[in-house]
């Protein structure tokens, strides 16, 4: 019933270490192999240490989110950590780059990760998708149960709240996205706008992808060697994106300028490609329609003087960089506000978790009352159906308030007394062990069931001792 997170991220480890780990978790098969091995871990008495597990791997982190069995103690946690260190590095020394969070800290850590506060770039949106992927995979592998389900859903919920209630993701922090955002400040909708990309580079690719995402449907690409441009389109874009892209001859780019609304420049040229006197006639031909120039090349390819022409807007990599820097600052400030939201969510989740402690008591209480009613009522009611209805409604009515009381008292530390009283009043300890357990036993393999049954009785003994 404890949540344990073990992992490493960009803060605790260097890129080589992260690479080693992510290589061993690269494919779903490798991850499945690893999770099965982890689930097979046993403590001294041969009981399973981990009940549920999900694996999160991104380029900046690898984390294992686990729900431990009832009996797993602190020692068990360290055993797991050791095992992980050995599995990936064959070196126990490396254990120190792994961090380990338990229960409330773990929940808080997961929520922080989901809200993208722990990311290298605060507020980046990918992490939530990756987390969802990890959860889906855990569901597919059948390694996620009631507990992790709730935990993950709460994490998604929390991330969404943080995203909508703070400005953490409001301002762009990548050059390509900033370029799109800027053009949205100038143009009213990008659907009917034409983009001209000069040069075929990585930065140009990312920016064009962003533009396509925001609805641009007409993109011309010009490169000094047309062959390279064609290869660039072939290799870097998906089929759907390719339909929007047209490779044009480099000599034709100037003819294309009056028809283009946005010009992206990222060539390797050492001189200005677009000069002040080039643009003057262009803007006249455009009937003063705004022209947005983005120069993401180094050294610059567009004459900075051009920005002085009315209705022409020029941004170079420095301008965008400064803008992003500002935004990163904004995000850091917003992160503080986000922490409050996260703490609230953590509180809610921990409350839910605490209330689970009451579940076994409630179940055994219900069973007891139900059995009593059944045996008594069967004397007077012969019809099975009617009897069932009567038993159920009576149990519900009788136990509504006690159930609420138990749930409520399980949330505060003094509540153990009320639970104890309920147990003593109805003599619950001696008999049936929680149904939940039985169910779980039936789910596992017969071999496991045996050990689980043994451990269950041990658990009950421990519990009785504890209560006493």
């Amino acid at each position, binding site marked *: 019933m404890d949540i344990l997170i073990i992992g490493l991220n960009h803060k605790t480890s260097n890129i080589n270490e992260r690479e080693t780990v992510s290589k061993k978790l690269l494919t779903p098969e490798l991850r499945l192999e690893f999770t099965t091995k982890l689930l097979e871990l046993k403590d001294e008495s041969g009981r399973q240490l981990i009940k549920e597990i999900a694996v999160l791997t991104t380029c900046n982190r690898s984390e294992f989110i686990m729900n431990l069995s009832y009996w797993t103690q602190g020692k068990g946690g360290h055993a797991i950590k050791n095992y992980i260190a050995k599995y990936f590095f064959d070196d126990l020394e490396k254990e120190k780059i792994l961090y380990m969070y338990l229960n409330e800290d773990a929940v808080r850590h997961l929520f922080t990760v989901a809200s993208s506060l722990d990311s290298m770039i605060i507020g980046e949106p990918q992490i939530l998708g990756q987390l969802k992927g990890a959860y889906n995979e855990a569901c597919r592998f059948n390694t996620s149960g009631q507990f992790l389900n709730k935990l993950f859903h709460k994490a998604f919920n929390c991330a969404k709240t943080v995203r909508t209630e703070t400005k953490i993701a*409001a*301002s*762009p922090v990548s050059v390509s996205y900033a370029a799109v*955002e*800027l053009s*949205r*400040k*100038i*143009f*009213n909708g990008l659907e009917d706008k034409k983009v001209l990309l000069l040069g075929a580079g990585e930065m140009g690719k990312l920016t064009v992808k962003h533009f396509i995402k925001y609805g641009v449907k007409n993109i011309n690409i010009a490169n000094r060697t047309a062959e390279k441009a064609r290869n660039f389109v072939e290799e870097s874009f998906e089929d759907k994106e390719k339909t929007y892209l047209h490779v044009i001859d480099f000599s034709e780019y100037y003819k294309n300028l009056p028809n283009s609304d946005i010009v992206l420049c990222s060539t390797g040229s050492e001189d200005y490609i677009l000069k002040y006197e080039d643009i003057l006639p262009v803007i006249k031909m*455009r*009937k*003063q*329609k*705004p022209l947005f120039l983005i120069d993401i090349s180094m050294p610059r390819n567009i004459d900075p003087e051009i*920005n002085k022409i*009315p*209705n022409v*807007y020029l*941004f170079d990599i420095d*301008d965008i960089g*400064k*803008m992003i820097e*500002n*935004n990163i600052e*904004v995000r850091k400030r917003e992160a503080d506000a986000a922490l409050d939201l996260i703490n609230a969510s953590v509180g809610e989740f921990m409350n839910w978790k605490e209330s689970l402690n009451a579940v076994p008591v409630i179940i055994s209480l219900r069973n007891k009352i139900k059995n009593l009613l059944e045996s008594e009522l069967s004397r007077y009611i012969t019809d099975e159906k009617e009897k069932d209805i009567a038993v159920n409604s009576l149990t519900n009515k009788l136990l509504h308030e006690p159930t609420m009381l138990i749930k409520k008292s399980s949330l505060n530390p003094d509540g153990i007394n009320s639970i104890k009283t309920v147990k003593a009043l109805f003599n619950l300890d001696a008999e049936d062990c929680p149904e939940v357990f039985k169910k779980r036993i039936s789910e596992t393999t017969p071999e496991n069931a045996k050990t689980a049954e043994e451990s269950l009785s041990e658990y009950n003994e421990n519990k009785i001792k504890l209560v006493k």
Partner: protein
Amino acid sequence: MFKELYLIPLVIYIFSYIVFAFKDKKSHKFFVYLVYAGFICQTIIFLTFLGIKGFAVPVHIDRFVFFNAWILMLVVIIFGFFYKVEYILLYITPLVAVNLIIAFFVPHVHVRPVMENTDRIILLTHILLILIGDSLFALAFIVSLIYIFQERKIKSKKNLKILDMPSRSGYNLELLDNINYICLKVGFPFITIGIVMGIYLSSSLFKTFLIVKPIEIISLITWFIYAVLLHERMAKGLRGKRAAVFGIIGFILILASLGFSFYFFPAFHGFE
């Protein structure tokens, strides 16, 4: 009498600004609703006046100013509805509020009754057309101001942080420019016919066509400015900052002509 009623929408508008000061999305929505509520309030008051007095002349000047505020709001709300730019309400509401304040404090002046019946209809149409045209130009003025402010920010590349407000995605130069253009295109015919009717009325009032009145000169200058602007936009594709500056100058002239007609030379505009 009834003047106190003007304060109701005024108070609603002021309150809406207080609500807007809370910087979250919900309060922004609430702000929009409040402005609508203020407008409905204005409409009800206006209809009540119409019910009591009908189109009878003489009419008090404060009614006109109140009517002006109503038309202005109506035009902006229709615009906001078609262009999904509710944020313009934020800038136009103060203008409306100022109108309401003027309506509250303006002295009780009557419009001199015009003799014939046909002239009375022309007078009412003249007022209506001029007010609608002026409202559209007022909107163009506000939009031009936002445009210039926004354009400067983008050009100077300083303080770009303010640009990053996702909740106000309506802030883009092209849209502002389009609104400016549409205001001009729609408002110009209104103003033109309105001015023609005004000249006709004044000639029938003073029984001569040739007396040169300051109100006529200044409105003709205003008309000319807007005519040039429209021509430049249509023929040469004048756009952006220069068009915005034109729009601002034009509106200042409109304000001047209104000032002239109401305060400096009321007699020439048919007031007693």
